[in-house]
């Protein structure tokens, strides 16, 4: 509830970056568990992004919460793919691909946010930091889901398994929804971080169920992703409903109904 101490943005940033990158790097650990770990990396990135949306959209963008989500995911995909491409352009070892994808997305996010702030004249103090964060989270989540499908984080593998069949467009919209929808659904006078982020977790698990469905050609790995995603979604969504009920006005005003034995 609102009286609990909120989780700091820096901690969620660390969770997103470390969790996301770790998930992506662990893809090669095992053909069955690897894709699941990559998906869970994507979940971490989505939670990070949802918190950044919460910080920036709380100021009131004037264009709706989804707008910054779509823009940042656009930056994230462009930056993510450019970062992956940079590895072959500069002949760097493939292991730096995910880090470069994140860094390039952060840089483009930073530049676009500076343009929005300095030229357009947006007056939101956290705009630059948050746009970069959402772009980074978007890039990491898309690269993580793509890695889960492709089995590798190199651009050539992702191009064949994700971009050619058009799954990248699905990830664009799905990850945007997963990142921007929690705050859009929960915003209001009694919005609290715990409830919003619980919905973000539910969305992220639902997203990995979709990744699992796309990964059916991979065999048992897909089944594992779908089961974990479904169980994760069920638990987090139940928790979200509980938090929503607790926060509902009548409950806040009058407290929970007393149990029969207490009367």
């Amino acid at each position, binding site marked *: 509830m609102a009286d609990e101490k909120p989780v700091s943005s820096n901690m969620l940033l660390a969770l997103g970056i470390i969790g996301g990158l770790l998930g992506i790097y662990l893809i090669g650990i095992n053909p069955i568990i690897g894709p699941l770990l990559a998906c869970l990396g994507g979940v971490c990135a989505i939670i990070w992004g949802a918190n950044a949306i919460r910080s920036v959209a709380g100021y009131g*963008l*004037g*264009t*709706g919460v*989804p*707008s*910054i*989500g*779509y*823009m940042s*995911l*656009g*930056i994230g*995909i*462009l*930056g993510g*793919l*450019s970062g*992956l*491409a*940079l*590895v*072959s*352009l500069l002949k760097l070892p493939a292991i730096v691909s995910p880090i470069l994808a994140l860094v*390039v997305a952060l840089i*483009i996010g930073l*530049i*676009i946010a500076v*343009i*929005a702030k300095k*030229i*357009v*004249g*947006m007056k939101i103090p956290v705009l630059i930091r948050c746009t970069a964060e959402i772009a980074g989270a978007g890039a990491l989540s898309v690269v993580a889901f793509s890695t889960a499908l492709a089995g590798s984080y190199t*651009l050539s593998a992702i*191009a064949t398994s994700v*971009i*050619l069949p*058009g799954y*990248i*467009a699905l990830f*664009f919209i799905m990850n945007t929804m997963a990142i921007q929808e929690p705050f859009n659904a929960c915003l209001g006078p009694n919005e609290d971080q715990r409830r919003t982020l619980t919905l973000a977790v539910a969305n992220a698990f639902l997203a990995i169920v979709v990744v699992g469905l796309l990964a059916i050609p991979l065999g048992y790995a897909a089944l594992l992703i779908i089961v974990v995603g479904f169980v994760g979604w069920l638990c987090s969504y139940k928790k979200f409903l509980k938090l929503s009920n607790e926060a509902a006005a009548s409950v806040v005003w009058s407290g929970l109904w007393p149990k029969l034995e207490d009367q």
Partner: protein
Amino acid sequence: MDPISLIIFIAVGGVLIGAGVHFIPVGGAPAAMATATGVGTGTAMLAAGAGMTGLVTAASLTGQSMIMVMLLGAVGAMIMMAFTMLIANYIYVYGCGVVPASAKVDNDPITGRPQEIYCTPGTEGHGIPTVCFVSGVIGALMGGAGGGLVYFVVNDALTKASLAAPMAAAFAGIIAISVYFINAVVASYNIGGTIEGFHDPKFKARIGKGFIACLLASIVCGIFVYVLIGGI
């Protein structure tokens, strides 16, 4: 394709997208309650609908000339935008029972009909009057053509870099969508939420700044698209 031409074409496409967004009658939440003129949703939604339809139609002419791809992109986006505004108007007129009218002008610049007497007191107009409809279609034309141009140049550059045609089209599609959204949202930040169209005083006041912002944003996108193409 040399880097300078690629970046210039992407910048032109981006500016067309950004300028197009300024023409679209975005009403936001007030319009959803029929207390402001325009379609009752945000720019991101309208741009997504029209822009993506435009890109799909543009992509259906992959391999044709630049003008054809841009034209078909424009036609797809215009059809989508026109239908969105038409259906929204049906809902406003027959569902909410309001007359399409603008509070920003005394007479509709296209039909010349008076507007003020039809505006409900306390509102900023409602529905999508003729001038807003025409403005929206012009906006979709520019946005669709801009999206089509970005798609064409990226696809062309990738094909010339000897990438297989389906892969080039897939890359060009996702890059065009990304550039489209970045410019559409930068433009909507510049508008500050709602606008009625080219007759809105906001249009003249903001279009210059929007032009520069979208130009710079597209140049940045263009540079990274060049890196991406080089890496593929």
